């Protein structure tokens, strides 16, 4: 067997948690994990959408404890390794230790693209626990290339083995991706990953750009089950990249089976690019705000696009879901004044 050109990392069971309103059941996770493992996917992620410890009023409570889900997923794997997401400020080191006890083998420590230095202790712990350890730079469109390089170097200096460029808002266009990945390729020694959102229908094009620029870890989700309009669709990505002549190491039919026979069956809605999704990509808003914005718009009787555009203008970062309700309330108050 020839060597894989890159690793495809599936995030359906973590990013998809947003789209599922954090309601994954153990059965859903087991079936998906089993299918991914059988298809030859080497890494996939299981956590609350906002990472370990994300179960909260702010982001939504997990229906089933994420540790149970991680344990169930690990239990189904013969070859694949389970990754967990950890966002410092939300999750803490103890959460990671617990996740490792139940079978996690990889950790992706995520910070806003300019704040890598909050993650030093978590990256160090990942290495200490023998995990494949990743630094994950979120909202990477919000910083110029030099800043992305500077922050990636910090992650590398803490011990990260892979650094991700993460397009959390689905804002980037292929040249933005090429620029960032190429700059990293020139300036850091560790491997480079890319994570897309499809809010502007650019996820596949951006993924191709990332691979061509030298990314060796690329994220996708089955049936695009992720926040906002979802991620690069894993099974489609595998097909496209094979056509481009890369060796994905994936069994396409088996991957399609888990996408269509398992994941599609439990999805709460199709992963389309709705008006809100489009505006998120257009104005650079964190994709997991989607369903919260819809709820706030309904509660306060305001247009969800107005909320999203304002959040973009305010330069909201990942995790600021509370700001959505604050902004919606301010719009409603203004509207009331006009009407009076």
């Amino acid at each position, binding site marked *: 067997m020839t060597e894989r050109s890159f690793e495809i990392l599936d995030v359906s069971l973590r990013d998809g948690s947003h789209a599922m309103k954090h309601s994954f059941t153990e059965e859903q996770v087991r079936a998906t994990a089993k299918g991914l493992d059988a298809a030859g996917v080497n890494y996939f992620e299981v956590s609350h959408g906002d990472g370990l410890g994300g179960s909260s009023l702010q982001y939504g409570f997990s229906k089933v404890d994420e540790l149970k889900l991680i344990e169930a997923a690990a239990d189904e794997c013969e070859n694949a390794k389970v990754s967990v997401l950890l966002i410092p*400020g939300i999750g*803490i080191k103890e959460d990671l230790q617990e996740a490792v006890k139940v079978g996690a083998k990889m950790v992706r420590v995520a910070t806003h693209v300019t704040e890598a230095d909050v993650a030093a202790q978590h990256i160090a712990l990942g290495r200490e626990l023998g995990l494949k350890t990743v630094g994950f730079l979120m909202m990477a469109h919000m910083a110029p290339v030099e800043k992305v390089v500077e922050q990636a170097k910090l992650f590398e200096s803490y011990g990260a083995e892979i650094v991700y460029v993460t397009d959390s808002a689905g804002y980037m266009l292929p040249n933005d991706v090429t620029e960032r990945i190429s700059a990293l390729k020139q300036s850091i020694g560790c491997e480079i990953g890319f994570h897309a959102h499809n809010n502007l229908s650019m996820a596949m094009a951006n993924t191709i750009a990332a691979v061509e620029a030298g990314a060796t870890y690329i994220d996708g989700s089955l049936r695009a089950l992720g926040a906002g309009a979802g991620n690069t669709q894993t099974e489609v990505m595998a097909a496209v990249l094979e056509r481009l002549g890369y060796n994905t190491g994936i069994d396409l039919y088996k991957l399609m089976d888990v996408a269509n026979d398992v994941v599609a069956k439990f999805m709460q809605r199709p992963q389309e690019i709705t008006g809100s999704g489009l505006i998120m990509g257009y104005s650079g808003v964190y994709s997991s705000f989607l369903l919260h914005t819809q709820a706030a718009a309904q509660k306060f009787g305001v247009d969800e696009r107005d909320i999203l555009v304002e959040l973009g203008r*305010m330069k909201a*970062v990942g995790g600021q879901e*509370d700001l959505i*309700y604050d902004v919606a*309330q301010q719009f409603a108050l203004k509207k009331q004044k006009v009407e009076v």
Partner: protein
Amino acid sequence: MRKLKVGIIGSGNIGTDLMYKIERSENLEMSVMVGIDPDSDGLKRAADRGYVAISNGIEGLMEQLDLVDIVFDATSAYAHKNHSDLLTAAGKKVIDLTPAAIGPFTVPPVNLTEHFDEANLNMVTCGGQATIPMVKAVSRVIPVEYAEIVATVASKSAGPGTRANIDEFTRTTSKAIEQVGGAKKGKAIIILNPAEPPIIMRDTVNALVEEEGKEEEIIASVQEMVKEVQKYVPGYRLRGTPQFDGRKVSIFLEVEGAGDYFPPYSGNLDIMTAAAARVADELAKQLTATNA
């Protein structure tokens, strides 16, 4: 009236801002600034204003203990234990602004004088000072099963100490939400936002109460508590009105600082130093009154 003499260990952002607040107190007298870098801005400012500036850390302070009655520690959680042991053994009152949490938590409008007998008082965290009064404002009306706070601060206002101690922030704040705020279970989230111009500190408190209802009482209690905090942080404000959704109560806040050493957006740093100064001021008032 006799004033109590104040020493501050840590000549960084927090310690320097605190110095200006001590100067405004009627019961405290700024005396000594302790740092470890003779070139630090805080030490220079202290010396310029006529205070004793010690640049060899706790060792230097231990040689001149008669200069202080109360010592604030604005260094880091890792350094605090040693400082506290040395100072309390020498009979000094210690007010801890690190998240070390050796001593009991103090949040002025909730339990200002409760732990005055203790040698070491802990000021929780900036996010704790901003939100725990609100948790208490709800829990004194109706039992709170769970309270969660989200503190969003400008990246520029989070120094290297906060960044290295982010887990300690989360853990200490969660504990204090329970112990001081009165929630059965607490959780804390902190978010750094690098937007320019820097954002004013924002805090959200979400609480799950025992049962629906009592909305008017909760709103009144919250508004009353806001006034209490405004006595020492005038820029502490509600954004909109508390929101109710079933058993969930959501309170939105912003905290604008006094602009002493930091620009006003750093309400997170301001509320910490203002709360610590408030505690020391009251402590001084009581100690000088009983000794008079």
